[in-house]
């Protein structure tokens, strides 16, 4: 029986690496604050999804052990122990390092006690005018049903005293999500002072209860189970069903109760009752709750000196700005490495397709889109222009359902054919297909990627985009769309390798192929970059490959259930890179006796991706692109600035330059490289003039 690391603890170790970025003194202050907020936001999602489903499992009485041998109860206990340590680190950093350091730089977080009389008066006006109309206090009825508080909102619990009848009562004031977390407070100097919304409400809440006085307050925040899935079998209309899920998620079981550690005992007890939280769900924090919302502060204007220097996306040398995307792709396949290279060409392809009279149809899968999505705007325009637009909107993209629903509705109104995903599977493949008539024939242009069609994340996540009009790739993309729109069964593809049908068997074959070569004494090597590695069969195959003598180099950002450095995995090296951009590209290399096979993919090496999702693995055949991808893969293993080595116990150790070794930071290297390439191309263009000639 192969050994595996615990998935949840492995993920928590990843989050610890994110938190470590916040602890790095060499990083600019607001970047550190950003990483702290990211680590908190990650934890929120972790509790909603993972802890939520583990609690459901525990409640169902199942004792099934996961691959590392933990029962749900053991898992929850181990998670709690690890999270307590992590949150202690978070608050220690915030209270003792970041808040004081920010104050020195003029960003001052004031407590209610620190407000001067004039500031108190100023905030009172703000409270009256802008805040109190949005507050709806919930009274506690001692004998009735406790009020339901919304998830992930900060809620203020108050003790009120009525001097008239000498009675005490409790009320809850949920802070509306549309209210800003931070309220500016006027100062004499140039400092940027502010007070947190919950402190402001606590200070002025007595205005909401005339005749009563507030004798104590505290803030709390509940996290509920987000793992409420649509019962697809019963769903007549998935869109309606999804709205129900969104509502249910706000009021589902409590999986975590965060409360201030200085909360008065009676309030604390009342909150536990109201939220039905057991001792194991309570996390007391020595500071403000909901650190995820501190992210906004990291983007405060006028503090660029406290942030990293901007690395704007460069234009790829493969893209000619004056040529249409169709001309560019027809001239040769294009590979873009985001966010170093701009995502704009991908958007341009769809925008040009929407306006091009020769384009017949556009088909696209949307998983997570940006708030103001140019891509959806282009698709709407295309549908309005009479093109056949087919869009698969994955409503099951967790936490993005609401946005996806709204845009799906807009697309449908414009006349696009909308498919709400595939039954029982999440559609995670990133593919866009454009059918265009050229000289009486139909040509297919395809974009295949590792990241979502999301302009915002395309500036923050590292991803790969492959643009081609090779007939086999276009044909396979057509087959995929025929299958996901329910018009055809999933047929055998010529080039692309889809999950859940073919990707895992192919990966296992490729790994076994390397193992076989190693056994025969031939050179054998696997390099893979993935966000998570959890699938037991893939891990077992990698152990076998290691034992056969295959050199296995893995770059895994997050969960890694593979245990490196043991007897059965002595040839496996695992690194994790955490830097300013979120590592998101999936890229695999198999040596294949010196004629390497290189793939990009939308899927991680997790069972959910390989067996429960529609995903694509894309073989890259063009030699130049292949070589470039191999260089990208290699670079991560040279990183000695932002890389961590995963240790056999699942924890990680930062990699530092060896004696005499130069510092190397992979992301910086990619940025410099793309800048140099763009500059060289710009120079080349400036030397070549293109005259305007009369039209024939």
């Amino acid at each position, binding site marked *: 029986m192969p050994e595996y690391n615990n998935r949840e603890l492995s993920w928590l170790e990843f989050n610890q690496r994110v938190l470590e970025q916040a602890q790095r003194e060499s990083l600019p202050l607001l970047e550190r604050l950003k990483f702290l907020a990211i680590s908190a936001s990650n934890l929120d999602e972790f509790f909603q999804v993972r802890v939520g489903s583990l609690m459901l499992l525990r409640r169902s009485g199942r004792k099934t052990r996961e691959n590392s041998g933990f029962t749900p109860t053991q898992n929850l206990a181990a998670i709690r122990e690890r999270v307590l340590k992590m949150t202690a680190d978070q608050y220690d950093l915030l209270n003792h390092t970041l808040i004081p350091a920010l104050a020195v730089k003029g960003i001052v977080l004031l407590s209610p006690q620190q407000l001067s009389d004039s500031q108190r008066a100023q905030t009172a006006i703000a409270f009256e005018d802008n805040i109190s109309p949005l507050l709806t206090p919930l009274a506690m009825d001692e004998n009735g049903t406790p009020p339901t508080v919304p998830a992930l909102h900060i809620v203020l619990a108050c003790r009120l005293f009525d001097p008239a009848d000498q009675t005490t009562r409790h009320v809850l004031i949920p802070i509306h999500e549309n209210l800003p977390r931070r309220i500016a407070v006027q100062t004499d100097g140039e400092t940027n002072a502010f007070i947190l919304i919950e402190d402001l409400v606590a200070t002025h809440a007595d205005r909401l209860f005339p005749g009563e006085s507030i004798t104590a307050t505290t803030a709390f925040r509940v996290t509920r189970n987000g793992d409420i899935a649509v019962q697809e079998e019963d769903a007549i209309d998935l869109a309606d069903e999804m709205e129900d899920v969104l509502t249910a998620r706000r009021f589902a079981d409590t999986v975590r109760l965060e409360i201030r550690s200085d909360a008065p005992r009676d309030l604390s007890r009342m909150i536990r009752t109201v939220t039905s939280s057991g001792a194991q769900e309570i996390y007391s924090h020595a500071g403000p709750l909901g650190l995820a919302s501190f992210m906004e502060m990291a983007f405060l204007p006028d503090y660029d000196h406290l942030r990293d220097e901007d690395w704007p996306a460069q234009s790829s040398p493969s893209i000619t700005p004056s040529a249409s995307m169709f001309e560019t792709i027809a001239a040769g396949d294009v590979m873009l490495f985001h966010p170093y290279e701009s995502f704009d060409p991908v958007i341009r392809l769809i925008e040009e397709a929407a306006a091009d*009279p*020769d*384009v*017949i*149809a556009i088909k696209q899968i949307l998983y997570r889109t940006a708030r103001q999505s140019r891509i959806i705007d282009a698709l709407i325009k295309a*549908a*309005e*222009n*009479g*093109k*056949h637009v*087919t869009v698969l909107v994955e409503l099951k993209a967790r936490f993005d359902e609401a946005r996806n629903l709204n845009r799906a509705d807009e697309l*449908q*109104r*414009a*006349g696009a054919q909308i498919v709400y995903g595939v039954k029982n599977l999440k559609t995670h493949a990133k593919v866009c297909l454009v*059918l265009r*008539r050229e000289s*009486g*024939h*139909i040509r297919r242009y395809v974009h295949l990627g590792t990241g979502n069609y999301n302009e915002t994340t395309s500036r923050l996540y590292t991803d790969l985009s492959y643009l081609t009009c090779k*007939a086999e790739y276009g*044909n396979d993309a*057509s*087959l995929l769309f*025929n299958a996901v729109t*329910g*018009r*055809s*069964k*999933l*047929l*055998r593809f010529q080039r692309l390798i889809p999950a859940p*049908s*073919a990707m895992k068997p192919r990966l296992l074959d490729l790994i076994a192929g390397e193992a076989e070569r190693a056994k025969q004494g031939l050179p054998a090597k696997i390099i893979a970059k993935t966000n998570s590695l959890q699938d037991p069969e893939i891990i077992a195959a990698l152990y076998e490959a290691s034992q056969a003598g295959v050199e296995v180099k893995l770059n895994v950002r997050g969960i890694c259930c593979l245990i490196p450095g043991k007897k059965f995995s002595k040839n496996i090296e695992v690194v994790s890179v955490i830097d300013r951009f979120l590592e998101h590209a999936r890229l695999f290399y198999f040596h294949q006796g010196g004629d390497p096979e290189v793939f990009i993919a939308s899927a991680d090496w997790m069972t959910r991706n390989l067996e429960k999702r529609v995903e694509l693995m894309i073989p890259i055949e063009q030699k130049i692109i292949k070589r470039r991808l191999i260089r990208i893969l290699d670079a991560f293993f040279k990183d000695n600035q932002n890389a961590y080595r995963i240790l056999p116990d699942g924890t990680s150790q930062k990699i530092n330059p060896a004696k005499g070794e130069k510092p190397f930071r992979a992301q910086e290297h990619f940025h410099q490289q793309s800048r140099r390439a763009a500059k060289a191309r710009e120079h080349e263009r400036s030397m070549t003039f293109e005259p305007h000639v009369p039209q024939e």
Partner: protein
Amino acid sequence: MVLARKKRNITPADPANILTALHIGASSVSIIIAERDEKGNLTAIDFLEQPAPLAQDVFGGNVVSNATTERIVTIIRGYQQTLSELGLDPHNLTRSVATNVLHEAANHEAVLNRIRIACGLPISMIDDGEMTRLIYLKTRRRIQHLPAMGQRTALVVHVGPGNTRALLFQEGLITRYTSYRMGTHRTREAVEASNAEGLSLLRVIREHASGNLAQLRFDFSDVSIDGIILIGYEIQSVASSLTKNNEACTLKDFRKFTAETANLSDLEAVKRFQLDYQTAEALVPSLEINLAIAETLNLKEVHIPTSEYEQGLLHDLLASRELTGSFAAEVLRSARILSDRYHSDADHGEHVGKLCEHFLTSLQDLHNLTAHDALLLQVAAILHEVGTYVSARAHHKHSEYIILNSEIFGLDRLDVTIVALVSRYHRHSGPKLDHPSYAALTVEDRIRVCKLAAILRVADALERTHAQRISKIEIIRASGKLRIRLPGFEDAAIERLAMDSKADLFEQVFGLAVVIEEDI
């Protein structure tokens, strides 16, 4: 509310370059949309396939259920939407056909009517002849490169949903063609009641097929087969699990694979081989029948093409027209082999055939027969005297039943019946309604028989001596007569005598009295 779309102003691809073929198959409905380049080569633009349990219904209950019919309608409507997206007319397909399995459904006409009403598409059934032709095309176009085809004697076996067909290729040419009432879905439905599983299921299948297998062994007992190629929907869908790079699969491996597959549940087969349920259910019968055939013929290995069966079939449906010439040649070769088997006078048959061709060409406006009818006449000319093998007396009647009970490559049952009747009517009595096979035909087909037999009788009269004396003729039509001039020929007394007894049908059918004129 969905707003109405703007009027589409997109120019589609040139429809003349786009060909479409729809196939309602035994277990799925598929469509190919292909583009033809300047050289006439076809490239698939799109191919869609959806499972539908047609064969299961037909072999299970003799009718296609309403649910299946409606499923087919829904699938076709989806395909029509795809056609619209490509700017094509969704009601005007190059070919729209249904498997001949449908013919066995009592309600096949109602099913085709329903599809026509719901989708606006007329569907024709692929007959046995076309099916054979498609197998031939597949062999010619796709599997000719298989190592087994290079061997001296290769057998191509197609286990279809209802029937199995075997084509014997010697030196690359078809020398024999046989078919058996044994198929994947037919067998599956027949053995289902046994509730057998695993190895016992294989035994039940083998027992069920034993009669056909014995016939097959007998049919090929006189030839030494060097290689066998197994084709079919189910077997090709698992070919990549059985063989790599089109290499041969040993019988030992094939046997092992079949036994392993028999032990899988349908769900496991669906998952392991990425099949739909319809195919998974017919997989074990397909494997066992194919294995039994290979074992019956004492072969050590089999070849299974790894190409996609269904897509190839649809491609061939579109491409078949361009290959008519070589196909006709194979039909005639098959007829000649049959003629040889019954020691018929080959020179006579060929010569009559030539004369028939002459009449057909010269009298096109008179008879309005098709190229396919012309092919049937050629076959009848080759075979009209095979009955002499039984007895010279009433040999025309012997010819009829020998032909009726023989397989002629590429001809369906109707074709064979027509050839048999035309051969029968080459002498003595003309067609009469108390001749059962003739009476069973439609009026149109009876007229075809009359026209073809009339021409054969005249040609046969001119070849009365079996000496190929008359090779040059001139045909003149004038004042109610068909004058046959024989340049350079002085005494045609024997032929005239023969014509007196045979030209009656020609006059009845075409209204022209036949007159022979020597070159005096």
